[in-house]
């Protein structure tokens, strides 16, 4: 039992990431439609989209090389790997020890790296434009992300995710300025990383404003399905990472299987709230010009660095 339990948790976690991520996206869409007074296609629409795409045949660009074809699998694999190491429902996650927060950021980086390459592989202006912009956003967002999670890991004296969640879970609820800064920064970065408004708009195909969509413009069939799924997982993971780092309460502690149901419920509630928050932001704000994005991310970067500084100065 003792040895099986972590493996169960691991399997369960991967399953949750795979299954629940489209649900989160669906939930966000539904809420958004409500907020904008439209009728929604229901919470399960993303599943239908994915299955439809899996059924479809593939049309490759003439110029596409093996990089273009292998990218979806790598993106999917890397994102799922990330999903396997973030403690979502329980802190004792065996794989969590194999890759810490730095590796987590790097895993997302791999996915992005290959997506950008794929964007340039087909040889359109769009692909290149998308990659260029994506890498611009990333090159500012990634360090900011590292900074903000570093702040957390300074607080918790560890970079190993489960230990971070664990320590934050252990010590009593107290208001730390550093964590507040870090959370704010993290929120901004999450928006940028997942290409949500105001940085990017996942539901547009207007050439001049696209970032992420421009890169995957030429994808079709299962390739597109994998990429879409991966991006859903990414949203899910960022949300759950945020909650498990900053609001870890309710997550199952070390070998406490009894807590798992509670953990489920709390996770669901938290993610629902996150979704709501996203919707609020996306309906309130308009997409900003591409060259405003650096300022946006710069703000995030400054916030996270401030968080770190305030840890050193105030705590």
């Amino acid at each position: 039992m003792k040895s099986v339990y972590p493996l169960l948790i691991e399997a369960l976690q991967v399953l949750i990431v795979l299954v629940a991520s489209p649900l989160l996206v669906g939930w966000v869409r539904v809420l958004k439609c409500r907020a904008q007074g439209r009728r929604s296609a229901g919470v399960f629409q993303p599943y239908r989209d994915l299955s439809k795409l899996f059924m479809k045949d593939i049309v490759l660009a003439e110029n596409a090389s093996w990089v273009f074809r292998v990218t979806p699998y790598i993106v999917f694999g890397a994102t799922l790997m990330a999903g396997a190491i973030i403690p979502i429902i329980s802190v004792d996650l065996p794989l969590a020890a194999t890759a810490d927060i730095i590796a987590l950021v790097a895993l997302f980086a791999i996915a992005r790296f290959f997506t950008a390459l794929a964007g340039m592989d087909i040889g359109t202006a769009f692909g290149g434009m998308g990659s260029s912009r994506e890498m611009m956003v990333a090159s500012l967002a990634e360090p900011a992300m590292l900074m903000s999670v570093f702040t957390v890991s300074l607080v918790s004296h560890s970079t190993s995710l489960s230990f971070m969640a664990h320590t934050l879970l252990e010590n009593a609820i107290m208001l730390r300025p550093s964590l507040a800064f870090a959370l704010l920064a993290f929120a901004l970065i999450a928006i940028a990383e997942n290409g949500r408004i105001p940085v990017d708009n996942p539901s547009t195909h207007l050439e001049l404003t696209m970032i992420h969509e421009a890169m995957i413009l030429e994808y079709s069939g299962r390739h597109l399905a994998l990429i879409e799924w991966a991006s859903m997982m990414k949203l899910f993971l960022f949300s759950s990472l945020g909650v498990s780092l900053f609001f870890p309460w309710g997550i199952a502690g070390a070998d406490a299987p009894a807590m798992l149901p509670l953990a489920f419920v709390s996770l669901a509630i938290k993610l629902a709230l996150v979704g709501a928050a996203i919707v609020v932001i996306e309906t309130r704000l308009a997409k900003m010009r591409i060259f405003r994005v650096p300022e946006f991310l710069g703000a995030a970067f400054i916030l996270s660095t401030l968080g770190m500084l305030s840890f050193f100065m105030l705590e």
Partner: protein
Amino acid sequence: MQGIPFKGRGPWGRGVLNLDPLGLVSLSILVFLALAGLSPLLASRQKTLLAITFLGSTLASLIALSGGFLAVYNSSTSSMIMPVGLPDLPFYLRLDPLSGFFATVVAILGFLVSVYSIGYVKSFVGVRSITPLAVFYNLFLAGMLLVLVADDAYSFMVSWELMAAASFFLVAFEDENAKARKAAFIYILIAHIGAVMILLSFGVMSGAASGFESFTSYTFSSMRANAASGHITPAWAAAAFLLALFGFGAKAGIIPLHVWLPEAHPAAPSNVSALMSGVMLKTAIYGIIRVSFDLLGVTEWWWGGLVLIIGLVSALIGILFALLQVDLKRLLAYSSVENIGVILISVGLSMIFASFKMGALSALAMIAALYHILNHAVFKGLLFMGAGSVLHGAHERNMERMGGLIHKMPWTAPLFLVGCLSISSLPPFSGFASEWLAFQSFLLSPSLPSPLLNLLIPLGAAVLALTAALAARCFVKVFGVAFLGAWRGSANANVHEAGFSMKAGMAGAAVLSLALGVFPAFVIGWMDSVPSMLVASTVQAESPFGWLWITPVAPERASYSAPIVFLGILSFVAAAYLLLHARKTAIRRGPIWDCGFEKLTNRMQYNSTSFAMPLRRIFGFLFSIKETSRAQGNPNASPMFQDRYVYNLKLRDRFWYLFYKPASDLSFWASRKVGRLQHGRIQIYLLYSFVTLIVLLMFS
């Protein structure tokens, strides 16, 4: 020769047979020198010369590799005395784990590049005489190894300058184009000034000892003795450190002493630039570590702080410059500046920790530095070799005219991609492991007693993170523009794949950089003897399945298991692939979406300049940019409907105008003024001597 046990019988006599590491390394040095001496004799038969030279250097590198590896592995220190040099100052040679490690790095890349060169240099045969290349290539390698084993100031300087001179001739190899000559000139000038500064720093360190009554005060052992016995006052120690830092920094290419690098690397043949960028810069790092940790002993924390700041500046500015380059090799050169910066960041951290007597942390940072040195040697070597085979296959260095090489070069492309992945520090490739260690040593900093540092270090971490992200972006650009997309150059360019030996060299490097990324635990375990020698402590904390993990301080602080991550990604990818290919689906090829605009041409792709454009918008203030765009065609037509537009972007290294041009202007101004002395009128000359006489008489 006090303090130097006469161990290890040299490579001659029975020495060859015993496995004394120093014996092996010096044997390989002798082989290199012998090859260099042999080459002119074979000048008439270029083909045989090619074969013998590079096969020989391959062999010699292997010998050196074994020696260096052993020295680190059983952390042995052996020394010997070669009866050359001044009569009472022979060449003292010594191989300890530190020099052994660097010798290993040199030898690894030396081996790979020598294999590569067999094919690469063949393209010169018949075009020009390869004799100088053969001679100076071997001298260069010999010089680098000599630098590492030298154990007194004299032999160190001799080998240091030998290395510089050899590489100078290699840079000037294609001497008929003026750019190469100019590059060689700038390179040798900066290198020589740096050498003189190093010399002065040695003067400080040895002078404090016996006051030069005898030459033995030039040996490193007596310098160590001085530092230990406190003969050197802190002020002099600081002077020695600063002189050494800037002397070696000139060679390492730290900002702002980097200007020779982007000139020299493109000018040199690619195998040479691989060596220069991969290992020659590292010898400078070796010098800094040797002087600060070994000879002087780090005492002041600001030394480390200074190194850290230099590292940060070099890393950030280096990568920013790299991002804006369009010349592939130039870009790689700037990225070397960045990586040297990254290495120096860790070195600086290690010095800071050492100055506060925090052995374990210092060891961690040191390991991060060494690991990145090793990685950078491998993947930068790989990238330069790749650039070389692009140059060799497509005769193109300007990325604006490349594209779609992946179709024409099925081998070079993936190998180059591996290089890009690991230089962008993406797991599971090698770059990530060292970056991970560097971040760990940053995150362990809060235990520092100095508040100033505590504020400096988060910024440092931020800059390091930013640098890493920008590096990833830079190499997306490189691979995407050069290898992906469609060919932008002239239609009738016959692009062909590199030959076998070139592929072999690159493949070796690629495999190595994957291995270094996947099995860091082994590597760290191997190189732990270096920090244990320098700061008397090691990093690897005990944990189950030690080979599987790197756990710097304690498992609950941080742990990273590259093999598992690698396997995890692999298995997920495989699973997805298999599941999706269970059902057969047709794959059609179709034209790309041109959003209704029929006349898409290859030149409409995003190219390097346009890819870097957002960055120019953000960091433009760092560069001196001249951007012009004008319409060609009939002037009275509306600007909308001109038949072609010419866009021109001039991008210059601002440091050139900040420091170097003023310096040269100043010296020419001074020489004009001094020239006035030679006035031509004999009466004036007589007046000089008259006045001199009067003045001296007044003083006497």
